[in-house]
């Protein structure tokens, strides 16, 4: 049986909204369920999901600054053909809300991204970041403790030295497993704008952090300085027309990284070229399709996520309506484009009005780079098989799915007669959006985050 403890150093929650929600939680709910629910929601909204390199651990971050790590049970593969289930392994408070006194701004504790480091010893390391600060966490297990101290009693009290008559060597005895998370490094005060991405380099010594206008390069061991490698801030802020939306290091080349912009372009930079990578080595941009031009063309072309394939040959970008696969060798257009929810193209004005058009969907590759997955509205998520060119829409909801149920493919009807089992566009729930998804690096296990629920699916093994 596993016990998880919060790191004792960060137990207290001081911010006002958190205290408020704490009060609501403990009080009897005389208020309507709707009101109390909304306060619970705030801290529980999942903001990032990430498998580690082996797939054994799954980390999630939420709006309340907490990180919850799930671990896959190590089942005996011979006995059962299905993979192990994921259980909660560790929970800790990664970031606290802060107050910037200089600007009178509150800094949200919401975890924007989590990235795992590859495992080098018994402990696990991950980077988690909010809008301003990145932290390196060490998650370690303890399942033995020393017993038989000479000067201390078992409960920790010091013995009277006069009572010590013999000497003994303390021995390790097994104990209940305890998982501890401790912050090892805190990388702070390097970003004026909100951090949207972090990415660990393939050298496993450095990583980059990107905000709206700048990208910084850090060394994992050094917290008091970082190098600015990209700066797109104009001299006059009123001339600003483009911001950085995501950045990632190449999985194999430690000198290469890409960053995407709000104008739908991706720039690939080589750090060997110069210290400040303001001039890109490659610019990936698809010419606009004039037939699809609308007032919102620029807004929907803004890239919300960029991910390299595991092989490093391709990269995938997600804009509002589509997923595009780019070959790094070809800059003028993507090699594959998949429409995620084209039926929304005729609803752009309404989506703009309710701000849904600014939703930042993420995307992910499977382990073999043959299938890509991304989320949509109404708790739908989509998968595209690059080889067979088939796609599927599935729903993550608890109403229809008991555990071990096979998911039924869904279909959205754009217009005209609605067939049975189809959902019309106007009955989609735009509050239920799946922004964060993750795919196990080796197996066909996926993690899908709805607003405040996490779903883990695996493919049926016959």
């Amino acid at each position, binding site marked *: 049986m596993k016990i998880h403890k919060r790191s004792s150093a960060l137990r207290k929650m001081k911010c*006002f909204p958190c205290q408020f929600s704490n009060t609501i*939680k403990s009080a009897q709910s005389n208020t309507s*369920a*709707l009101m109390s*629910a*909304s306060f*619970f929601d*705030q801290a*529980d909204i*999942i903001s990032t999901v990430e498998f580690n390199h082996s797939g054994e651990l799954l980390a999630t971050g*939420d709006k309340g600054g907490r990180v919850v790590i*799930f671990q896959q049970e190590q089942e005996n593969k011979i006995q059962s053909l299905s993979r192990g289930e994921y259980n909660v392994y560790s*929970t800790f408070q990664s970031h606290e809300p802060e107050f910037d006194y*200089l*600007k009178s701004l509150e800094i949200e504790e919401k975890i924007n991204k989590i990235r795992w480091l590859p495992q080098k010893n018994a402990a696990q390391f991950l980077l988690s970041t909010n809008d301003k600060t990145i932290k390196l966490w060490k998650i370690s297990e303890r399942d033995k403790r020393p017993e038989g101290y000479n000067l201390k009693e078992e409960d920790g009290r010091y013995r009277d030295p006069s009572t010590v008559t013999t000497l003994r060597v303390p021995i390790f005895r097994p104990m209940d497993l305890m998982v501890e998370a401790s912050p090892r490094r805190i990388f702070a005060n390097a970003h*004026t*704008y*909100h951090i949207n991405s972090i990415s660990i380099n393939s050298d496993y010594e450095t990583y980059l952090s990107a905000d709206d206008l700048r990208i910084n390069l850090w060394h994992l061991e050094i917290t008091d300085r970082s190098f600015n490698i990209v700066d797109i801030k104009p001299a006059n*802020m*009123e001339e*600003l*027309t*483009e911001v950085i939306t995501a950045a990632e290091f190449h999985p194999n080349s430690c000198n290469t990284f890409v960053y995407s912009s*709000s104008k739908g372009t991706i720039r690939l930079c080589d750090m060997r070229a110069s210290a400040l990578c303001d001039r890109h080595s490659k610019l990936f941009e698809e010419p606009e399709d004039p037939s699809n031009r609308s007032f919102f063309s*620029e807004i929907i072309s*803004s890239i919300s996520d960029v991910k390299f394939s595991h092989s490093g040959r391709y990269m995938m970008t997600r804009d509002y309506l589509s997923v595009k696969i780019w070959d790094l060798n070809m800059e003028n257009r993507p090699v594959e484009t998949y429409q995620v929810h084209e039926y929304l193209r*005729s*609803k*752009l*004005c*309404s*989506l*703009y*009005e309710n701000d849904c058009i*600014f939703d930042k969907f993420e995307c992910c590759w499977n382990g073999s780079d043959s299938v890509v997955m991304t989320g949509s509205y109404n708790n739908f998520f989509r998968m595209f098989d690059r080889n*067979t060119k088939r796609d*599927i829409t*599935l729903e993550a*909801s*608890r109403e229809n*799915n*008991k*555990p071990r*149920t*096979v*998911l*039924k*493919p869904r279909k959205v009807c754009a217009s005209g007669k609605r067939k049975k089992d189809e959902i019309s566009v106007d009955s989609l*729930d*735009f*509050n239920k959006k799946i922004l964060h998804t993750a795919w196990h690096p080796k197996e066909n296990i996926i993690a899908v985050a709805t*607003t*405040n629920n*996490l*779903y*883990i*699916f*695996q493919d*049926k093994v*016959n």
Partner: protein
Amino acid sequence: MGAGPAAGGRGARSSPSPWAGRGVACGGEELRWPGPGGGGSRLLLEGVRVPAPLREPARPAGEGRAACEGAGGPLARSSSRFMLGRGLKRKLSDYEENMAGLSSAFDSSRNLPYPLKRQLVLNMCLTKLQTYKMLVEPNLHRSVLIANTVRQIQEEMRQESSQQPINVCNGIAPNPPSYPGIDSSGISLHLPSGSSQQESNCCNSWSAEGPIENSLLMVSDDDMSSAISSILKDLDFMEDISPPTSLVPAGDDEPPKSPENTCLKLEDDRQDLKGAECVFGSFEISNSTSYLKDLAIDDIFEDIDTSMYDSDFCSPPLMAPRPPSAATEETLKTFPSCNSSSTNNIPICRTDLSELDHIMEILVGS
């Protein structure tokens, strides 16, 4: 217990889903986020729109996003501020229950004229930008995207206006909105209180009337003189050419006028206001051109009622700040009265005209 493999018949093109929902936690239960919420309340949480954090002021559009579980989603409840104005027919469509707001109308109606659509989008953009300015820390990404959209629309309007020689608006200055100094200069809300008052008046009046019927004619003195000089320039230009037929006000299929943008400079704020309809411009020029054509004919002078062409007359329709509707009415009222007196009325203050009058008086007097 588990369902059998999905039959191949499900879904026309998609393959049967090989994905089984394990959603696992201990004991095969569906995995839940280990939040503090009670089990029973969980079902209510999905689909509840999380209200904005306490530090943000409530946004007017937020009302449109009230919790809705399966009741049609936020598309059904657009902000009521964008209701269609009087006199503008709404197209009846299949999704009538969702036609709550203009954005729905925008999306579903194919017959909305392009300038109207453009004006709608521009209004929405400017409203959003204004709302963001009121926030302590606006989202830079969104602000940039919206500002680019505004610029793009303005550029388009400017190109349209520059193609039409009758347009008199003094050019569009693509004033980028000033981003609150997020970095070293600190947070600054650039709105001086006076201008924000004006703006909110604009907003209120805008919402009260349809975007086409509303013509905001708020110009500063500088703009007025520059508008007049550009009118004069155009008039000079047109002496050389025969009046093209396009001078007739826009065809019947289009709503009254294409809205033009008159940009207003409020101190150093450089904010963009709503598009202003230059009723003044197109009406004047169409009449003045015919006047110019007949300039050679002496008979015309007999029809001119000089009292109307007093320089003071020009100011009232242009004076600011008036409630826009009042300004419109007054402007419209004065022009018909001009019309009744003569066919060639030009309430434009021209130095040439006054000189002519002077000469006439001298001639008549002697």
